[in-house]
């Protein structure tokens, strides 16, 4: 659709903003905007307020970088979690996937991505230093690397392993029942839960075959 076919500049601006969302093209964006215009005004205002509120008030946990309403997230501050185990994941979505399995009682560390030299994402762009700091405090027994089985995930595993292997901890990784290239978020709960229970020592998982 050509931009000059919009009858209103205001409408066009709104469509442009919606079209920036992942998976939304111009056509869907227009449909969403026209839908909002047909709704009662208080409903739309509640929608806008929810987004504004989230932006204003959302925090990231100062310990694990999980999303949180408070400075320290509900997982890090829960007395019933095992504070000697850290599960290292790429994103907040992965925390939600693993929590859904109900098989894990330890803490998390959200890296905020994986190393990808091709996309210009290096170690310093991720929350790796804060992970090493947590381990250096000496209260951790096990670190579980739960990154996707992609080339990027593997490189990140090896990089982190090198940084933490000299601490008195066990480093483990998820059992690779999961096919090559599978991302954690696409793995079903049962498979993911089983992979967590059947984790293996990282230094035994070197071989590619």
């Amino acid at each position, binding site marked *: 659709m050509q931009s000059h076919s919009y009858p209103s500049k205001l409408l066009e601006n709104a469509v442009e903003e919606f079209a920036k969302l992942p998976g939304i093209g111009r056509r869907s964006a227009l449909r969403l905007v026209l839908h909002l215009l047909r709704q009662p005004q208080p409903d739309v205002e509640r929608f806008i307020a929810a987004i504004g509120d989230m932006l204003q008030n959302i925090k990231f946990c100062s310990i694990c970088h999980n999303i949180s309403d408070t400075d320290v997230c509900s997982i890090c501050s829960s007395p019933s979690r095992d504070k000697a185990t850290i599960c290292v994941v790429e994103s907040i979505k992965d925390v939600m996937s693993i929590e859904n399995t109900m098989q894990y009682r330890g803490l998390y560390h959200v890296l905020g991505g994986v*190393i*990808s*030299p*091709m996309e*210009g994402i*290096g*170690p310093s762009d991720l929350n790796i230093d804060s992970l090493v700091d947590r381990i250096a405090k000496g209260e951790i027994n096990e670190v579980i690397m739960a990154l996707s089985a992609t*080339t*990027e995930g*593997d*490189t*990140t*595993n*090896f*990089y982190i392993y*090198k*940084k933490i292997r000299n601490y008195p901890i066990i480093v483990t990784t998820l059992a690779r029942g999961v*096919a*090559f290239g599978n991302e954690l978020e696409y793995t079903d709960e049962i498979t993911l839960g089983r992979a967590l229970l059947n984790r293996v020592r990282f230094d035994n998982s*070197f*071989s*590619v*075959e």
Partner: protein
Amino acid sequence: MFLKRLTIINFKSIPHIDIDLDTKINCFVGNNGQGKTNLLDAIYYLSMCKSSATLSDSQIIRHGQDFFMLQGLYSRLNMDENIHCGLKLGEGKVFKRNGKEYERLTDHIGLLPVVLVSPIDGELVEGSGEERRRYMNGVISQIDRIYLDEVIRYNKLIAHRNSLLKAASRNHFSYDLLEAIDIQLAEYATVIHSKRKAFVEQLIPIFQEYYRKVSAGQESVSISYRSHLNDSTAGELLRENIEKDRTLQFTSVGVHRDDLAFTIDGYPIRREGSQGQQKTYLIALKLAQFDFISKVSGLKPLLLFDDIFDKLDFNRVNQLIELVAHDGFGQIFITDTNKHRLEEVLQRVSSGYKLYRVENSEFEIVASK
């Protein structure tokens, strides 16, 4: 193993055909540009999940259409196998075996092995090392389920490593990150090297035997596998070349630089071989590939001869057809522009055959036995 029935819709120039095939020899005669090669390519596609020409999938859809579909009914180990392949623009490719969709295309490659002999094989002699690496990958992937995954992983790691080497000239260089990449690269390189080495070692004697059978000459032919990893381990190579690679800003050593040297009487065939010798060399190579795959997999690959008779004299053609009509080979597909030549050759074979005339992407059966 053989293809019983083939359905094609909107594949390259072919709008729609349904065709029943002979279990042994299938010939397609017609002028150039009538659709013979496209039919063979459709058979190749159903086995290898891609065209034999370096075309993107969207280029394969018939002009003006938005999808193509291929369906093959095969008999494999005395079981029927229904293979479906479809591609719709903007929706990606679907491969199904007996109604069940594959999760990964690499799971399908090797199920129905195929060997294509065509004029583009000349690129194996004339082209760059990439052509010969693609050749090795094509053969090994048909007998080894995880080989292609390993090559894909390896290539991706090389791409990451090269990006890192390039970025390093601008920013601070992380040896730790390079090491994290190299430890994986070394693992994959070692596996790929040993598989390629084993393949070439097994191929050489079969190849030499076929060359003797197909040629009348006394010349001695061979193939050697050239790899940096023949003399050093992958880990050593990467370590020793780090500073060089940093200067070059790409990875200068590894199996991505592998090559095959094709020789005749000790000299490169590209320089010393006559056109006829080169052609015989390539046919022998493909027949050896057939033997190799059938020995390892226990399945006789489909053999596709696409327009290869033109520069061969009649006796050579006859010899070749007699050779492959023999029991050691399975189902064969032949295209040719010369009807008389094919008819004459077919008269002499004892096996069954079907002969189709191809005109304007229509296939009409004209003879069979």
